[in-house]
């Protein structure tokens, strides 16, 4: 499957010569996506011990951008992630509860350069700066909180399919990604430095709904 995309990509670029379509200067861009996941678990033994666990994660993301010249835009993306976990053990000899609540908020400033392959398809390259704030809270017998912040730089290509002139579906391809990351946690002071480039492609891509609004349409 990876091979397929690597083979396709030059093909797409080759096709680009014929394309006439473009995003005009002044066009506004909106994009949004959400993913959510969760598990509720209830475990009972014959000795009447009961363990209940709840796990929920939700990650919405919205972005806004404006084309400062044809096919080039500046944008900002807000992408929080909320994670909630609770476990509750009850039994003849035990009664334990544990909760954890983590929030990660990322603010991403990005620029994009689009290249149209046909009327419907376009690819883009997106360099971005990522600032993130992390807040975690664990509750067992005592409350324990941790805070952190981080920053990173990413470059990722993506692909856009225009369903109508105003509406499109897009995906970040992550074919080549470079990221630098620094993390600082208040309580246990860690420092992460992490830089990498990969030519690996995942077998699934996150999809985002996006709108391109010009004044004329």
């Amino acid at each position, binding site marked *: 499957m990876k091979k397929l995309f690597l083979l396709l990509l030059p093909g797409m670029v080759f096709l680009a010569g014929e394309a006439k379509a473009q995003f005009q200067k002044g066009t506004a861009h909106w994009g949004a996506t959400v993913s959510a996941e969760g598990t509720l678990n209830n475990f009972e*033994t014959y000795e009447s011990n009961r363990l209940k666990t709840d796990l929920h994660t939700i990650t919405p993301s919205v972005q806004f951008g404006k084309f400062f010249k044809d096919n080039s835009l500046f944008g900002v993306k807000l992408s929080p992630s909320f994670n909630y976990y609770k476990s509750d053990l009850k039994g003849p000899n035990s009664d334990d509860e544990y909760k954890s609540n983590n929030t990660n908020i990322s603010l991403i400033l990005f620029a994009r350069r689009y290249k149209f392959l046909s009327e419907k398809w376009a690819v883009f390259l997106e360099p971005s700066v990522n600032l993130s704030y992390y807040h975690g809270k664990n509750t067992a017998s005592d409350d324990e909180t941790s805070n952190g912040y981080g920053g990173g730089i990413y470059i990722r290509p993506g692909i856009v399919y225009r369903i109508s002139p105003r509406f499109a579906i897009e995906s970040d391809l992550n074919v080549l990604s470079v990221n630098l990351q620094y993390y600082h946690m208040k309580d246990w002071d860690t420092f992460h430095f992490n830089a990498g480039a990969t030519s690996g492609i995942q077998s699934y891509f996150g999809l985002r709904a996006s709108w391109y609004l010009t004044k004329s349409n």
Partner: protein
Amino acid sequence: MKKIILLSWLFTACSITIGFAQLEGKKFVSATVGLNFNNTNQDDYPTATNYGYNIDASFGKFKTANKASGFNIGTSLYGQKATVYPDGTREKFEGITGFGVNTGYFWQRYKHFSDKFGIFGGPHVNVFYSYSKLLPNQSSDNLLHRQHHISPQFGVSAGAYYALNERWWLTASLGFVNLLYVSYTIDKGEPWGTRNTTKTKTFDYKLSPNLTLPSVSLGLRYFFKD
């Protein structure tokens, strides 16, 4: 692999649409059938046998040349003959270890590139139910597990077809998005031969706008005479 490259190339490049008027009103069926049997003979161990089948069929109808919808239904059954070793003693097990049923409805829109070849895609809803029994030697905690699993799903899938002749199409799946997935599982585990059951109920949900590229699975579709 070559075929997908070709298909995707055309998907990107082509914009020719040819009227496919003769498809309107046509009914079709496609099915996959699987049968399996395996037998394991290992030194110092008794013979183990597994057997099972699965059948999935979908029935559809073209409303217009570019639109079709229909339903699918599927069933599977598995059994085995094995020896288990609870507490070091040998015991025979023989019987059904699993069965499943599923049904759903799909809507497809078509884009015909030529009279032979085109792509299709659209949403589907499905409900799966399965029952399975895991013998102690197959489960990680050495318990006998009985599991009921029910899962409604909503997604979007895409594929391509190649018309071999008027009656038969070759189809290939190109990708799918499982937008919403919900499942409920009841699992009962017990040490072999006791009634000391532990019971686990699990509810899972997943909202994931992800495009998954599957390994291409090929199918055949047969068109009924009017």
